[in-house]
């Protein structure tokens, strides 16, 4: 276990960024999001949650796949290079890391998504414990311990000092690179911090949320429930929840006409959008209710049914904060719970 004083962090960032790309929470015009570190960037480690989850470090919102160029009447295809440089993502939270685990289940199984795999291979994650969890957090529900997060390096910010603990080989390697800036530390304070955080987590309003009965066995029952018809009503069909979500992995593939050719790129898609999974014959979900249902059924039923019970929600609470109509997954779960109680 090491530590570093908060005021020395910029030196730390500089040191890391000197060797590789560094992504970390940066405040841009009042909004904190993960971004590449640059000299003078307004790094913000105090804000608990970045607006967007840091999943773009591995699965960017938009990325080129290949470019087609016209040469006379022939076409030339230039594939986009895979990530081949190491990089560090600093300041992810336990839920964000769990989100990456969910993405792994999608992108690293056969057929492997090479773009994603290359980023995972080259990325080192430095996770931070959540000093002051908020009322929208419910990671505990998914068995995540935000007091003791697990990644390549785990860190805790306690009284102006960042405690640092490498957990993997990648973590050790990174630690070695910045060893000069770190000093040895004991774990007493960290243990205290963990206890304090866990105590707060217990008090959070969503911590006692129960996911009992959400699994593949109840697929049809849940699917056919009349509750959806009521629940979806305020939904505006925007993509906010999916775009801030650390686990949403759906993407669309599009072409952009550059004039001299075509760039094929993929970008995040949202199951809330009316043109989601649009096919030649039309769309297999025609109403917003169906699209709304899809999102939650996917997270709470289909995904765990196919992935040994792992939900594709990590309780980060971003959708709770950002939905323009104040809808969220917790309200959905609770609505079913109430209905279950009545029946």
């Amino acid at each position, binding site marked *: 276990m090491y530590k570093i004083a908060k005021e020395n962090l910029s030196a730390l960032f500089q040191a890391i960024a000197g060797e590789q790309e560094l992504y970390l929470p940066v405040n841009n015009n009042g909004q904190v999001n993960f971004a590449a570190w640059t000299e003078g960037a307004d790094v913000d480690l105090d804000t608990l949650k970045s607006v967007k989850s840091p999943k773009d470090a591995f699965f960017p919102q938009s990325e080129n796949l290949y470019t087609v160029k016209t040469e006379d009447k022939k076409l030339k295809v230039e594939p986009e290079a895979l990530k081949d440089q190491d990089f560090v993502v600093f300041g992810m939270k336990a839920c964000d890391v769990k989100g990456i685990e969910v993405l792994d289940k999608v992108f690293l199984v056969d057929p492997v998504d090479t773009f994603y795999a290359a980023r995972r291979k080259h990325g080192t994650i430095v996770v931070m414990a959540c000093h002051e969890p908020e009322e929208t957090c419910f990671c505990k529900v998914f068995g995540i311990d935000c007091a003791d997060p697990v990644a390549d390096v785990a860190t805790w910010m306690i009284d102006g000092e960042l405690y640092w603990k490498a957990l993997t080989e990648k973590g050790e390697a990174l630690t070695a690179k910045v060893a000069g800036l770190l000093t040895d530390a004991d774990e007493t304070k960290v243990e205290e911090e963990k206890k304090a955080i866990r105590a707060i987590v217990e008090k959070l309003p969503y911590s006692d949320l129960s996911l009992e009965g959400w699994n593949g066995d109840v697929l049809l029952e849940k699917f056919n429930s009349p509750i959806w018809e009521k629940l979806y009503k305020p939904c505006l069909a925007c993509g906010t929840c999916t775009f801030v979500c650390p686990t949403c992995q759906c993407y669309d593939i599009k072409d*952009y006409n*550059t*004039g*001299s050719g075509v*760039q094929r790129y993929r970008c995040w898609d949202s199951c809330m959008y009316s043109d989601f999974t649009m096919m030649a014959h039309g769309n297999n979900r025609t109403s917003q209710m169906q699209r709304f249902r899809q999102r939650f059924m996917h997270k709470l039923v289909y995904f765990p049914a196919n992935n040994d019970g792992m939900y594709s929600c990590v309780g980060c609470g971003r959708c709770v904060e950002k939905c323009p109509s104040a809808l969220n997954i917790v309200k959905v779960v609770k609505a079913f719970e109430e209905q279950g109680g009545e029946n």
Partner: protein
Amino acid sequence: MSIENNNEFRPKIVAFCCNWCSYAGADLAGSSRLAYPADVKIIRVPCSCRVNPMFILRAFEKGADGVILCGCHPGDCHYTTGNYYARRRMTLLFSMLDYIGVENGRTRVEWVSAAEGVKFSQTMNEFVEKIHSLGKNVRLGDLRCKN
């Protein structure tokens, strides 16, 4: 070609011309041999009111350095009122482009009648000169369109 080889800035300029007045005005400029730079390329539309602000933004997105819209003089529209609507649309669009920091000489509206070949040519000469002074459109172009 040599034009591309020397590094002189050759702007891309799109001119939308209504079929009844301005396109004919451009024809007259041609038959009167009134020269203007080859950077100007004309797109024929039935009326200035056919020009969607999106076309203008599209041109900039795809790398145009200037866009000019020519139509019948107010009151002379072949369709009686089209250019009045175009005038309002363009005024608001240009004002918005100015507001977001696009140099405001990159867009222009000029009323050119079928008899005004001289005016057409003069306008185009002026406009090209203006775009030259503003240089390449870097603010609105899409990065992906860089050749």
